[in-house]
Structures are given as C-alpha cells and as structure tokens.
C-alpha cells in the first residue's frame, strides 16, 4: 500500500467498527434502482427516500425530462469546456437572464455546482483587506470557499444576533469591509436565519450580506425566492447563492446580486474559470424547473403539509427535533447510543434517511436527518412515522438497559 494512504487507516478502522456493530454500512449506500422521485432500491430493499433534498420532487417532472432529452439530442452530452472558453452556450446565458429576472436582480452567474458557486464567490468577492464573518453552522462549501480565498475569516455563534453584533463591533472600521454570510435554511437542523435582525445589524455597521438559499429556494416565499423573499428584505441583501440540485432537481449553482457589477467578478473566479460548464441537459431541465418553481404554490403547499405531518408525528412520539417545522427535520439521538443501528433499523423498515454523525452534527448529537418532498404522499409520511415508532421503542429499550 502507498505510504500516503496510511493516514486514512484510522478513519477506515472507525468505519469498520461502526459497520461491525450495526451490520449496516451508511458510508457505502448504493441506490441500485431509482423507482420514482421518492422511491428507490437500496441494499436490495425497496425504500421510501426521505433524505434526498428533492423538495419539489421535480426530478421526474415530464417537462423537465423532455427538455433535458431534447437538449442532449440537439447539443450533445457535454460542453467539454469552461464558461470562459467554449462552454457558454446560449442556454447558459438564457438561464442567467431568467435567474436575474426571477430574483429581480440585474446580474446572475451560473456555476457548475452549488459547491462551486460558493467556492467561487467566497474566494473571490473578498480580498486580503476584507473580512468574512460567517455563521458557525454554515455549509462546508462556504468554509472551503473562505479557505481558497485571502480574506480574514471569523465565525459567529449560530443564529445568535448579539454574537454577530459583538464581532462586527470588534472589527471596528473593518466592519464596512466585512461580508456577513448566512443561510436561508440550515441544511442539518432545518432552522432559519433570523434574517430581519441580521439585515438590521449589517446596516448599522455598513457590512455586506450574502445569503445561501440552497435549502430555501423554491421552499420559502410566495414565489419560491427563499428566506429573502419571505422576510421581505430582497432589496437589502447584497448577494444570494444557491444550487440547482435541490428544489430544481438537477445539478448546478448560481449567484445573483442587486449590484450589476457582479458581472465584473465573473472571470476572476477560478472555480468558474477552471471547470467545465454544465451539460446542455442540466441547463435545459433547470430552466424548465425554474418556471415550475416560480408558479409552484401548490407544490410548496404539498411540501409544507408533508413537513407538518412528519414533524407533528415525530413530536408526538417524543423525539427531540432540531427546529421548528421545516422541510428538513432532524431527529436528535442520544450521544451515548449507537446511531448506526437506528439508521439501519429505519432502512430495514423501508425508509432511507441521512445519518449525520459528529462533527457534522451541530451540537454533538448524532442525527437522523429527514428531508421532505412535495412528491411524498401522506401515506408515505405515515409509513415513515411507523418506522420511527419502531426506532422509538428500540431507543427506550436501549435507555432502560
């Protein structure tokens, strides 16, 4: 074995020990067959998928599928080039214009993934004389973007306005060169940023504000424009990033801004310049999905009905949930138990959820993370609840022994 791979032995030993205890391997989940936007065959079992972030269930929308097929036939399977070279097709530019119009912004940039959007924007927007002040629970793509860039990076305690203000105050005259970074809905617990208060604080100190709407696009706001729309602060937020891989059901990312000068940043971003652009099929299905999303009040109603049904059922069973009702519902497990066994129990009951282990789990409790879809039926939600009832019994037995 290469000596370079030695350092991963500890990680592999930990994984093997977890698998040996529970008989399930959450680190090698293979979706063997996709049945629908909410069902798949995993580890030989047909399961209901409750951890896909497919919030509006658009991955099998007939119009999106047709648009993707048409684009592949007409423009090929890939662009084989970066946006800066031969990879900007008319459809990429059209999607940028449609995103700008959707957000009522003068500028939009499309990236190959949501991760790359944050990598590009966070690493380039701020320079060595600037500061990034980020919520501690921000996504890894935001952390990684800051590491690729040269700004000073400071964290504030999750959703804590006093902590944010204290840190801005401490930055003194640098506060006006500070980019505050928060998320619409946080991916692990499903809780929202207190955006009205955050906007007020950023105004007081003359800072700029970026909101990542990865999990809130299509989910919050009358037109699906996320927490920024719901909170009615669209004219006060400076930058919004997001992804196509959740409510839009494809792959890709974007940044929009109320400043037209965002356009100047395009070719300075290495993660934009040095990777291939999205394939024609992805752009085509995303454009179609964006249209559906913007008029998708009925989809949002279904999504929130499902979220409410699951949240209510789990609360009645006495589970400790991460946050208020949200399409992301995190069931916190005791620190001392074996979360892999509980995750495996759900899988054997025909339910796939995300297993979140520390340090990825905020607060240190392992979590069974559910994400709902508008495409789930009430019967599916009830099946999820029946499986969690079995987990609840097992946890009580574990607690008693």
């Amino acid at each position, binding site marked *: 074995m290469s000596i370079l791979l030695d350092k991963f032995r500890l990680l592999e030993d930990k994984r093997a020990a977890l698998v040996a205890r529970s008989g399930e391997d959450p680190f090698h989940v293979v979706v063997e067959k996709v049945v629908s936007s909410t069902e798949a065959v995993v580890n030989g079992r047909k399961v209901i998928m409750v951890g896909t972030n497919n919030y509006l269930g658009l991955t099998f929308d007939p119009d999106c599928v047709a648009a993707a097929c048409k684009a592949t036939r007409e423009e090929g399977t890939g662009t084989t080039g970066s946006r800066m070279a031969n990879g900007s097709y008319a459809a990429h530019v059209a999607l940028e214009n449609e995103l700008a119009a959707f957000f009522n912004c003068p500028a939009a940039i499309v990236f190959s993934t949501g991760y790359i959007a944050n990598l590009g924007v966070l690493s380039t927007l701020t320079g060595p004389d600037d*500061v990034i002040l980020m919520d*501690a629970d921000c996504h890894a793509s935001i952390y990684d973007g*800051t590491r690729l860039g040269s700004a*000073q*990076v*400071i*964290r*504030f*305690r999750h959703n804590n306005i006093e902590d944010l203000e*204290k*840190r801005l105050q*401490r*930055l003194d005259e640098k506060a006006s060169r500070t980019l505050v970074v928060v998320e619409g809905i946080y991916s692990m617990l499903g809780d929202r940023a207190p955006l009205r208060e955050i906007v007020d604080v950023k105004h007081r100190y003359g800072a700029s504000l970026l909101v990542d709407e990865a999990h809130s696009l299509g989910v919050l706001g009358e037109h699906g424009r996320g927490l920024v729309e719901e909170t009615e602060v669209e004219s006060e937020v400076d930058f919004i990033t997001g992804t196509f891989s959740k409510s839009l059901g494809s792959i890709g990312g974007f940044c929009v801004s109320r400043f037209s000068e965002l356009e100047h940043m395009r070719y300075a971003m290495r993660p934009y310049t040095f990777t291939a652009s999205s394939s024609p099929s992805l752009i085509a299905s995303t454009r179609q999905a964006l249209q559906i999303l913007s008029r998708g009040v009925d989809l949002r109603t279904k999504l929130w009905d499902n979220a409410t049904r699951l949240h209510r059922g789990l609360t009645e069973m006495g589970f400790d949930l991460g946050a208020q009702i949200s399409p992301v519902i995190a069931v916190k497990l005791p620190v001392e138990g074996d979360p892999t066994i509980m995750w495996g129990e759900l899988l054997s009951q025909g339910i796939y959820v995300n297993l979140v282990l*520390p*340090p990825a789990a905020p607060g240190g409790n392992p979590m069974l993370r559910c994400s709902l879809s508008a495409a789930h039926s009430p019967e599916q939600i009830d099946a999820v609840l029946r499986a969690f009832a079995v987990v609840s019994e097992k946890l009580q037995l574990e607690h008693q022994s």
Partner: protein
Amino acid sequence: MQSKEEILDQLFELIRPYSEQPIEFSEQTRIMDDVGLDSMKVMELVMQIEDHFDVSVPLNILPDVNTIGEFANHLEKLLQDS
C-alpha cells in the same frame, strides 16, 4: 499590555476544560495531539478566546498554530495591533 506569560496562563485556563485527561500544560503542549481537540472544537475555542480577550482572531492563523505557545504568540501580536 499583557505579557506573554499572562496570555499563556489565561490560555491554559481556557483550554483546560477541553482536556479529557489531566495533563500538565506548557507552551509546548500541542492543542490537537496532546489536549485532544478536533478541528470543530478548535474553532469553538477560537470564539471563546475572542470573547475572553475581546479581540478578533481570524481562522486563517490556525494552520500555523500547533502548540499553546504558538497560539499565545499570535494572540500577543493581535492584541498589540488591536
């Protein structure tokens, strides 16, 4: 202006609760390898240190910080500049 020794003593007190085993703290004590903090806990510690000393501590210094003494050196400079 605080001396390096004063900063070190305060750092020992701030880091001590993170230690799972009682160990003798010195300038050479390594924060991750000896005290046992993982990368998330190190970032928690940074926020506590910021509040204790009322100074901004950019995460950018972390790659250069291995021991408590090295943290104290950075902190001394940050306090001078603030």
